[in-house]
């Protein structure tokens, strides 16, 4: 609504009050509510790591360093070497453990980093944002790189002498990389 139109409506307000309230109101360009986000507050929370790895922080960690952290902080929930703990199994039983086949009952229970996770960057992102469960957000970048390296090694994806950093982690290709398809259910009227 431009200014002239508004003043005309103001003049005619008593006469056309009901008409005016019945109309859908235009949204202003801005409500002027909220403030500019500071670079510092964005940086403090902007922790997501996409598959391109561009947002990975400086730092690095080796498989061996990761093993020490894993034993101390992760094994109690996820088991020795990522298997047999009370929480999610993280490691494949063998290098050729297949992607879950939905035509076999219960194979969906066997989803680990090695046979199901499509991106190695997600391992870093998730450990950094959520783990360990009793002390979330407590690991520094070097420790997260090291744990990621160790878990990828246990899953037969990187060698025992691997070191992960912003460059090497982004280059890791996961076995399940091309196993995910978009949702197409809504094209169908029957279950799909």
């Amino acid at each position, binding site marked *: 609504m431009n200014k002239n139109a508004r003043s005309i409506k103001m003049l005619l307000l008593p006469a056309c009050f009901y008409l005016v309230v019945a109309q859908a109101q235009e*949204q202003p360009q*801005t*409500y002027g*509510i*909220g*403030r*500019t*986000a*500071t670079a510092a*507050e*964005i940086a403090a*929370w*902007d*922790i*997501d790591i*996409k*598959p391109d790895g561009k947002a990975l922080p400086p730092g690095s960690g080796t498989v061996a360093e990761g093993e020490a952290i894993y034993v101390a902080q992760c094994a109690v929930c996820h088991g020795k070497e990522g298997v047999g703990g009370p929480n999610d199994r993280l490691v494949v039983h063998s290098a050729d453990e*297949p*992607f*879950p*086949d*939905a*035509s*076999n*009952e*219960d*194979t*969906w*229970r066997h*989803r680990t*980093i090695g046979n*199901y*996770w*499509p*991106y190695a*960057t*997600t391992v870093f*992102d*998730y450990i950094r*944002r*959520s783990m360990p*469960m009793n002390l*979330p*957000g407590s690991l520094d970048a070097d420790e997260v790189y090291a744990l990621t390296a160790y878990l990828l090694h246990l899953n037969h994806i990187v060698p025992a002498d691997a070191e992960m950093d912003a460059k090497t982690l982004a280059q890791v290709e996961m076995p399940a990389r091309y*196993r*995910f*398809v*978009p*949702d197409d*259910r*809504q094209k*169908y*009227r*029957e*279950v*799909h």
Partner: protein
Amino acid sequence: MTDKRELNVTRRAALVGMAGAAGTVLARTAAGQDVQVSGSNRPVAPDDTTKVLGSRWSSDLGQRSPYEALKRVPSSTLSSSESPLQDLHGTITPADLHFERHHAGVPFIDPEKHKLVIHGMVERPMTFSVSDLLRLPAVSRICFLECSGNLYHDAPEQTTAQLLAGMTSQSEWTGVMLSTLMREVGVSPKSSWFLAEGADAAVLARSIPKQFWDEAMIVYAQNGEAVRPENGYPIRLLNPGCEGNSCVKWLRRMEFSDSPFMTREETSKYTEPVIGEVARQFSLVMDARSIITYPSYPDTIEKGWIEIQGIAWSGRGKITGAEVCTDDGRSWAQAVLQEPVFSKAHVRFRHLFNWDGKDTVIMSRAIDESGYVQPNRAEWIAARGPGSGPYHRNPITGWRLKAGGDVVYRVEEWG
């Protein structure tokens, strides 16, 4: 997948407990109300309430009658609890009975300190306080919210509707349209995804594709009051019709982008293996579903007229029909839908049935405005595979009416 456990006390079981012959004593409820209880702990009401003054006068907060023992059922890991579908009427879920699911506990948030940062592919990165959001134009909408893992996998006969499918609830949500905030920050037309991130200890994050933006809301109220802590206090994302996990609670950050973020919750979780050794991803829409809530386990019934009741819902839009079968799958009849029917919302259906007292199975199926018909279990398994996992399972479920009047869950195998 949620752990399920046996319901210890149901409302009906509590009501069945009769006042004992033993003398009564005064007891104080959790809410501070003095009530007489019998030896069986059942409150004893006056024989004639017109001859004694009321037991309470005005108070600053209402409370349920001590005869109403409505309860959610928490899972063994305490990361979820289910809504008592069999005890509810109409379609609105009382907020304290709304199902919950969280990944690192319920955060304790001071709303005066909470903020929402919106950045990424926007012209003006902005920060909104909760009071900022309260000042922006508000919208209210009644819709369901359902966990995508809302089916008890190995349910035995002794399974309540609550344990079978109690991770769906319905509220009137109030908040700001996402589109309002998008205008304020000037979202780039090249943007096609945004990350929604919570302030919980999981810092739970999901990528939301553009197709859901028109209806998305940032909500701060649930059934007329602030959103409950376990449902996202002080603000959460609401994507009507979409799986609950995508409706990120305790929302603190949104980042607009031109590609998905591939978080753990949209790769290793909340994806479904389907036939062909692939997994379906970003499958946010909840398929049409229904469940009969009366009669259901552990009800007992008598032969004669029964009004079968239940709820039906669909993430694709409005429910256009709910059909009820009372003869173990041979024939279906159109149930009556309670108006008004809202899009992407629970609707209550009712169907009169004159039970002859003989063993039978009753079930329901939902039909939505897209023409989708809720499948039976065999159809579901044929389409997705028996090993598709816990998400987005919406098969028809039934209750067996046993001669004699016991009602139990109709057990079906997945294999």
